[in-house]
């Protein structure tokens, strides 16, 4: 009996022993995905990781136009530039949206967004996602890491430049967050510890110090206009400085108009030139036709960089007329999404019939009043044709199906710098008044293709109007109206402001978007903006 017992135990031991050996099979690894050690083994890998950080401007994901890096918002909507455009334009006189069933849109239309709104939430997370990617990238670029990986010479030099470009993008993203949400969670590393919240004014100081470092002599950034197209150089640093200083009073209550003058001038003097025609700035080949004026762009391609991003929806969405879409916009499909208000139409002389100001490009009939804000076909109002998937030679963009567009979206361009110089000067900045007028009139001359549109005297209202004429639908309007004190309150109303046809006052707290409830729930360091 005993022997039998041992026999059995022996058998069990042999069989289980051989099977226990399989525990190592519980370590399984993906076939195609790789670890950070593989990605960052060489300079090529660094560049591809950096491409993801840039790519967030114009793509929603790495895998599909219906997929997103950001959860909780419609995937197609979730690209940076589109959501930024929504939050900067749809709550102003420049744009009305008719996709009334898209989640989050109704609350923007009625000016009743709250901390659960998916669009305000979507952009917030897109910004912080990009910042997280930047933090991860920067942690891989330390001199120590490069040395440990045996990267030296030209590779190391290139990577150090990538590092500073990524540092700029992080500063840019923090700027966008500061402008829209005020007080952001603040983190410079990837850590599972919930970040603390930084006050808007402190965030301003942080961005300022980052930009200072990036323009300093120790910066590895390229001089203006010397980097590859689409990549950051010192011109972008100065442009962000100029924009931020122009709005410093809003961000910190401190005036920084002298600095705005200085930095806009730096950009202007860096050798950028205005594109010859305004229309060329927004074409499928604007990486060529707009290149001289662009300081930084979000790059799209109908085949290689596909998304339902800003360029795509603005091309398809500005009409419900299929032949307008095909003939004037170079896309197949008129998505009936956007219109503008009569306030913008009124800024142009004889806006609807061959205006001398060539920037006027309205479509959709002669009735400029939107009387029914849910009926695109019959509700009245006109739309704007600006971003086209047509090349300067009239041919269409690269995607033969007419869905995705090639048109790059300018994040910074020279014209804005001219207007910043002029405005900062008017607001008391230490600048040259004649120069300011010349800059201003150079935009007018391009618009009129003659000096017929020249003005003699500048004032602030003229600047605001000119910004709308020049920069409409480029994602500036909310910031501009806030700086001019016209966004909240009732001093300036436009059709459908506050959700009513005639327009009405909105509460002051709406100058900032809310911190999403979803982040407040999980990060107890965060406090909601007042009013929400």
């Amino acid at each position, binding site marked *: 009996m005993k022997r039998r017992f041992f026999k059995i135990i022996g058998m069990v031991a042999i069989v289980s022993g051989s099977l226990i050996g399989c525990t190592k099979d519980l370590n399984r690894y993906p076939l195609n995905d790789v670890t950070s050690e593989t990605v960052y083994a060489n300079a090529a890998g660094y*560049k591809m990781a950096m491409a993801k950080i840039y790519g967030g401007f114009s793509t929603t994901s790495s895998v599909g136009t219906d997929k997103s890096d*950001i959860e909780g918002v419609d995937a197609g909507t979730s690209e940076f530039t589109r959501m930024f455009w929504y939050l900067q334009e749809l709550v102003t006189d420049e744009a009305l949206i008719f996709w009334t069933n898209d989640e989050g849109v109704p609350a923007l239309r009625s000016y009743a967004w709250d901390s659960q709104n998916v669009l305000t939430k979507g952009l917030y997370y897109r910004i912080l996602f990009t910042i997280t990617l930047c933090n991860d990238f920067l942690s891989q670029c330390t001199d120590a890491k490069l040395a440990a990986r045996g990267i030296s010479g030209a590779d190391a030099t290139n990577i150090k430049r990538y590092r500073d470009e990524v540092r700029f993008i992080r500063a840019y993203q923090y700027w966008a967050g500061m402008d829209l949400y005020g007080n952001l969670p603040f983190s410079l590393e990837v850590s599972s510890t919930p970040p603390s919240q930084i006050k808007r004014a402190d965030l301003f100081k942080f961005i300022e110090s980052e930009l200072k470092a990036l323009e300093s002599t120790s910066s590895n950034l390229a001089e203006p206009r010397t980097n590859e197209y689409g990549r950051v150089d010192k011109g972008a640093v100065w442009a962000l400085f100029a924009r931020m200083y122009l709005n410093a009073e809003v961000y910190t209550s401190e005036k920084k108009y002298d600095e705005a003058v200085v930095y806009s001038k730096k950009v202007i003097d860096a050798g950028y030139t205005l594109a010859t025609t305004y229309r060329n700035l927004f074409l499928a080949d604007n990486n060529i036709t707009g290149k001289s004026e662009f300081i930084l762009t979000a790059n799209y391609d109908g085949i*290689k960089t596909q998304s339902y991003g800003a360029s795509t929806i603005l091309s398809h969405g500005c009409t419900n007329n299929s032949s307008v879409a095909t003939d004037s916009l170079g896309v197949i499909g008129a998505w009936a999404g956007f219109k503008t208000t009569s306030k913008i139409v009124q800024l142009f002389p004889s806006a609807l019939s061959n205006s001398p100001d060539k920037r006027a490009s309205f479509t959709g009939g002669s009735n400029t009043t939107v009387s029914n804000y849910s009926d695109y076909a019959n509700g009245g109002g006109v739309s704007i044709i600006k971003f086209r998937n047509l090349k300067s030679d009239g041919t269409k963009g690269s995607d033969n199906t007419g869905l995705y567009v090639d048109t790059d979206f300018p994040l910074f361009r020279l014209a804005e710098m001219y207007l910043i110089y002029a405005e900062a000067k008017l607001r008391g900045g230490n600048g040259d008044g004649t120069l300011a007028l010349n800059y201003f009139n150079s935009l007018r001359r391009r618009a009129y293709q003659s000096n017929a549109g020249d003005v003699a005297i500048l004032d602030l209202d003229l600047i605001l109007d000119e910004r709308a004429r020049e920069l409409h639908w480029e994602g500036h309007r909310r910031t501009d109206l806030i700086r001019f004190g016209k966004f909240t309150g009732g001093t300036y109303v436009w059709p459908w402001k506050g959700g009513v046809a005639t327009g009405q006052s909105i509460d002051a707290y709406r100058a900032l978007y809310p911190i999403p409830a979803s982040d407040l729930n999980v990060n107890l360091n965060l406090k909601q903006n007042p009013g929400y």
Partner: protein
Amino acid sequence: MNCKRLLALMLLPLLAICSFAQAQDKMVTGKVTDAKDGSALQGISVMQKGTKNATQTNAEGVFKIKVNAGAVLVFSSVNYASIEVSADAASLIKLTSVAASLSDVVVIGYGTAKKKDVTGSITTIGAKDFVKGAITTPDQLIAGKVAGVSITSNGGAPGAGSRIRIRGAASLSANNDPLIVIDGVPITSDGISGSANPLNMINPNDIESFNILKDASAAAIYGNRASNGVIIITTKKGKKGKPVYAFSSQVQISEVAKTVDVLSAAQYRTFVNTHGNSAQKALLGTANTDWQKQIYQTSINVDNNLSASGSFKKVPYRFSLGYLNQTGVLKTGKFDRVSVGINLSPTVWNNHLKIDVNLKGINTQSKFAEEGAIGSAMSFDPTQPVFNGSKFGGYYEWLDGTNPNKLAPRNPLGQLMNRDNKSQVNRSIGNVQLDYKVHFLPDLRVNVNLGYDIAEGSGTDFAPAISAQYYTDSGTSNKYKEAQRNLLGDFYLNYVKEVKSLKSRFDVMVGHSYQDFLITKYNFQSFQANGQPRSGSLPPQFPYDKPQNTLLSFYGRLNYIFNGRYYLTASVRRDGTSRFAPENRWGTFSAASLAWRISDEAFLKGNKVLTDLKLRVGYGQTGQENVGERYSYLSYYNLSGNNFTYQLGDSFYHMYKPGAYDPKRRWESAETYNAGLDFAFFKNRITGTVDVYFKKTSDLLSTVDVPAATNFSNRLLSNVGNMENKGFEININTIPIQNNNFSWEAGVNLTMYDTKLTKLTNVNDPNFVGNLVGGIDGGTGGNIQIQSVGAWPSAFYVYKQVYDKSTNKPIEGLYEDLNRDGQINEKDRYIYKRPEPTVLLGFTSNVSYKKWSAGFVMRGNFGNYMYNNVWSNTGTVNNALSRTDVINNTSSNVLYTNFSSRQLLSDYYVQNASFLRMDNFNIGYTVGKVMNNKANLRLSGNVQNVFVITKYKGIDPEIAGGIDKRLYPRPRIFVFSVNVDF
């Protein structure tokens, strides 16, 4: 059987009649058969009522007994309902089997037990009790038959699968399907490309029984995969003896029972002329087209099965061959299945080694109809003709210049006809099980089970260049291919010892299991119809991907019986899975249950009314490791696809993206308490089971928000939630009438359950309302359901509609300001009703009279609501008339509401979807011996999906998930079948 015995048998009735003429103390002879299939029954006790005079039937079912004149005979058995028959009429006795009889073998996972010894909540459904009719997938065999099990088919497409839920859903984000084990091989619930349903790869005709392990005390032996219950499928085995052949043939005729209520051409003309502008009115055509009529057809399907069973040189075998050919009611859809099954079950070494070999091979050929046509048919303008001689194959289309208008629906019939999406799937499941009774220690069994499940699916989705849908793409030709391989190695020892001195029986099992799942998923470029790459399509970044996961387990179980009536079962399983980080990868799952056969106690023994009573209580822990993710406990970098590169300078760069990760992720675990009673009255004339349970799922995976800037996603699948689930189930089977010519069986099962989310976040924040789920049509990003603490999973989350007091109609866009803050925004949404029923009812009935039989299965769900997305998405004026170049048809609901814009989040669209459905009605006639007595013939007819009683306004109240978008309608099927045994 030799000729003499055959003769004797045939003479038996004659003998019985002869005996009638004789005086007292006559000899009565007769034969006992199963009422359902006519097979001879051995070992049935035959007793003269009121005496001890008794005998049993022999192997041929024949008995002989000497009785007094006028005696009454009682026929009884644990497996059958007993009946009393006058001895004079006892020549041919038909007994009706009890649904799950006490001596039946129950498969409990790594072993079997007798039904009477089972301590957990396990339901066994054998072949005799399967649903009859056009059964094309195994799950349909038991629909409505088992308390606590709900089976909802995913619509009426050929080969479509079902959603199976045992005692409701245990998870929010992880897999909710029960573990399915076929002949000891757990199969993966991941579907394969080219097959709609993992279960349609098994021919239902090969199935012998289902054993459903419902509570955790029973299921815990499957450890970290058992939280949703376990369904053990056992296939038919060879039977010793001369070859027996069975052939069945079915012809099924399917037709659409109901279509969506949209405006007719006449109604639509009036509608457009009332609401449209001049451009839109001008678009109206002159035809009268019922688009839904155009896309559906009456289809004819056949299902033929042949099996042979017997023994060859002492090796019992079973061989089966099946051929199913289905055509969809939606035109162009087809499903062909050829299945082969082989079982060999020899016993060698003096019965010490039992070998069981099962091999199943299956080949399916599918042609998937373009289901987008269902939606197009609902919205295509009914005043337009089907054909106009267009360049798109002649089909009328909305145009944008000379191209099809991208924002219009496509011609529904053209969409179907100009599409050829074909797939082929080959699958083989097999295992070799060796069961060795150790020579020197016969109480010990060594069991080794080696199994595999391999499948390969591939197909091409083709549309010609003229197809309107792909016109600007010059047609399409997209390939897909996927292979799966699942290997199993199982080893256990089983020691059974009866110790008389202790009045005890010990049954101990210990074992080890290894299972490995490997998928190979191929990536392809998109092509035009002519084989050229599609515009914008680039070759895939990687030719294929190979996700893999592995499970390793150790387990043990003790079954202990004391004094024949006190039972204890205890089990423990230690499971390791490759899905989680090494420190979280292992877990232990234990269970214990007790049972007490009260009816064997002195105070009940011999009771004529309550003939069996057993009390069961159990507790068990189970887990759910199938969380979808395989590797993401670490952050891996993913390289972007070729359409997702970024331009820097003149080059486009692929993007490396770090993946979101959760190093702490682990399985969901559940604890279940279960108490039950099994009972039988009047010697099995009434049998039943009652169970109550309480289940608590913890570490529930939910996609939760993570603090921004801490991970590579803002939401992460994390173990944060808790859920409670409690329920009551009762299953009763009765045989109200049973006599020799006429019998009636009826069964009813009722389930009541309630599920509540009790925790959803790591941080307890009172302002957190929940996670939105349940995507709907109409706009982008819309969700109609919510996971919210205190509510049912996926409860509807809507605005409270305000109605016009005089007309009772909803007022467009007017909702109650529930938080009274003066504005209507997201904060005014509230939780209203739920998609899952609170009560499930199943009712079956079978009547047989002489050679005729008839039966039905009815099912009811109560307390469930449905979001009518068809109404909310299409029932508005703007949906019809938003454009000037296209006009769309709408749901007839628009005539009632007159809504101009979509009001997607209104609770008006959440509608009561309780229903009572007759799934199946059947009539059968046993012709009996034909062809010179060589064969036994049975004919039957069925109607499936006979009727539905419901208040729901859409086409079908039964849609898994509770959102009615565009259901492929479940057809009504008429079935004629012939069964021949020879």
